[in-house]
């Protein structure tokens, strides 16, 4: 079990309010991702849940019990840190066994659980090595192993993949997702990478300056962003925005349309523009188009190959039903 409820949680460092009153419920077994730009308070929020930071006010409940003042060790949560935070003086085996030793389990049970975890995470060959002798990906696995042996009610991940190179990150992302499918334990995952959020989450919590901007499934956020911030943050490449006359035509202060929701033609269309940079990825082509009417560069995503180069004239037409309309205060117009 691992249902976590945050009730009017706040955090102040001195006079700076990092987390204004915040309510959030994380259901048992859910994979929840906290995402937002750096400094948005997502890591602080995770540390509040972990108990590594004290609440300034409010309550945190885990499975119905108020744990607001319970020390981290007693909350039944396990955490994977960005820096892995392995114990450098212990072998991999001892690292993984450490929480079990602290829980005063008997040696046979410790051995059983450690070898289980090693099996699951492919660490069998490294059990007697020190963390310093492992690669980044292996260290990350050890950190995860140390978390899973405890059989916690929830896992907390604090940007666990940001120290890995791109290829490894994709692999570990899958491993963590598979782990979640197998264990079905609540996981809270903090990242600034919206791709990780979109690919892994059951539920995404978008944070900005300690405030929750929107909570929803990845596709809800993608299809119906509640405001311009979420619209711009979720999706890659970023959503295009237009203000002024074009937006007024749609009865809005600003309109947004995703790069993949634009039609492109060499002969006719709604907006005329000049190709600035063309990025050919093979599977897609990204064009950065300078509109003739001036204003910001519009990014277009075209499926497959598209032979346009710098300086070519193109015509763009947004897909009407995929246009997002926003009011002057940034909120979505339904």
């Amino acid at each position, binding site marked *: 079990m691992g249902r976590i409820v945050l009730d009017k949680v706040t955090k102040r460092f001195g006079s700076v309010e990092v987390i204004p009153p915040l309510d959030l419920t994380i259901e048992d077994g859910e994979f929840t991702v906290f995402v937002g730009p750096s400094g948005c308070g997502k890591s602080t929020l995770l540390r509040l849940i972990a108990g590594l930071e004290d609440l300034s006010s409010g309550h945190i409940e885990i499975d119905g019990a108020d744990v607001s003042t319970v020390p981290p060790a007693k909350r039944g949560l396990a955490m994977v*840190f960005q820096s892995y*935070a*392995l114990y450098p*003086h212990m072998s991999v085996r001892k690292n993984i066994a450490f929480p079990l030793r602290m829980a005063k389990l008997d040696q046979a049970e410790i051995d059983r659980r450690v070898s289980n975890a090693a099996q699951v995470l492919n660490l069998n060959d490294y059990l007697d090595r020190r963390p310093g002798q492992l690669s980044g990906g292996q260290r990350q696995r050890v950190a995860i192993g140390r978390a899973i042996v405890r059989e916690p009610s929830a896992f907390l991940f604090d940007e666990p993949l940001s120290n890995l190179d791109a290829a490894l990150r994709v692999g570990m992302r899958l491993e963590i997702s598979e782990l979640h499918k197998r264990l079905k334990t609540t996981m809270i995952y903090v990242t600034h990478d919206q791709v990780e959020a979109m690919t892994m989450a059951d539920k995404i919590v978008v944070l900005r300056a300690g405030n929750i901007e929107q909570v929803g499934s990845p596709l809800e956020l993608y299809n119906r962003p509640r405001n311009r911030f979420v619209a711009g943050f979720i999706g890659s490449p970023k959503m295009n925005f237009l203000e002024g006359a074009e937006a007024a035509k749609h009865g809005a202060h600003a309109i947004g349309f995703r790069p993949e929701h634009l039609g492109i033609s060499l002969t006719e269309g709604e907006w005329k523009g000049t190709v600035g940079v063309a990025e050919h990825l093979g599977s897609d082509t990204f064009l950065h188009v300078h509109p003739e009417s001036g204003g910001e560069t519009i990014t277009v995503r075209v499926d497959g190959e598209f032979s346009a180069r710098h300086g070519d004239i193109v015509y763009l037409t947004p897909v009407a039903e995929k246009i997002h309309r926003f009011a002057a205060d940034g909120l979505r117009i339904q």
Partner: protein
Amino acid sequence: MSRAVTTRRKTINTVLAWGIGILIFFPILWTILTSFKTEAQAINDPPLFLFFDWTLENYAVVQERSDYMRFLWNSVIIAGGSTLIGVIIAIPAAWSMAFVPSKRTKDILLWMLSTKMLPAVGVLYPIYLIFIELGLLDTRTGLVVVIMLINLPIIVWMLYTYFKEIPGEILEAARMDGASLREEIIYVLTPMAVPGIASTILLNFILAWNEAFWTLNLTAAQAAPLTAFIASYSSPEGLFYAKLSAASTMAIAPILILGWFSQKQLVRGLTFGAVK
């Protein structure tokens, strides 16, 4: 061309370094040499450097006249005891300052260090009176306590700088893993800081060993360590240089040997964190 200059520079630097090294070590060397002379040779003018009748007579006399082993044992207990107790007190103190600093942590550290700036003689009288009152005069217990307190600021400072190098996340991981504060310090922090703790122990052992002001003032016969042993050979009426030198050599020999074997550790510890 530039290479030639470098070689000459190196030579000059080497000669200079050796020169300074010998200059610093010379008094100790002279003491050791003098300890093997007769009293007459010891005060010979011009001084005799290597060509004299080497003798062990002084050592025999010193050994006969006073119980070297008792002084040595007192030194070991006082230096060892004060260092050990100091480290046990300082580890949690340094932990809190390094990992849960408050606004005043820097001030407290400076304040602690400032106690080292007070001339020791300034508090001799009150401490002497306290010692009389508590019956601690000329006891090893009393000296262990005083010397531990005298060196505590340095121990805390050294440990603090070593602990600062340890990433806080690792301790947080231990906390998440269910370690109590005590377990966190014993199983995670201390083993990770072993090089730092070892050099702290070493340096403070040496400081305590060499400490002369308090050991001379607060002891008479029972608890007197090697510093008192040396002092007992320097008397105002008629100096016996050779015997004094023999006593000094015997007194500094253990710490010299310890320092020699642990110099690598000491240098490593003292430059810990300076180069990543």
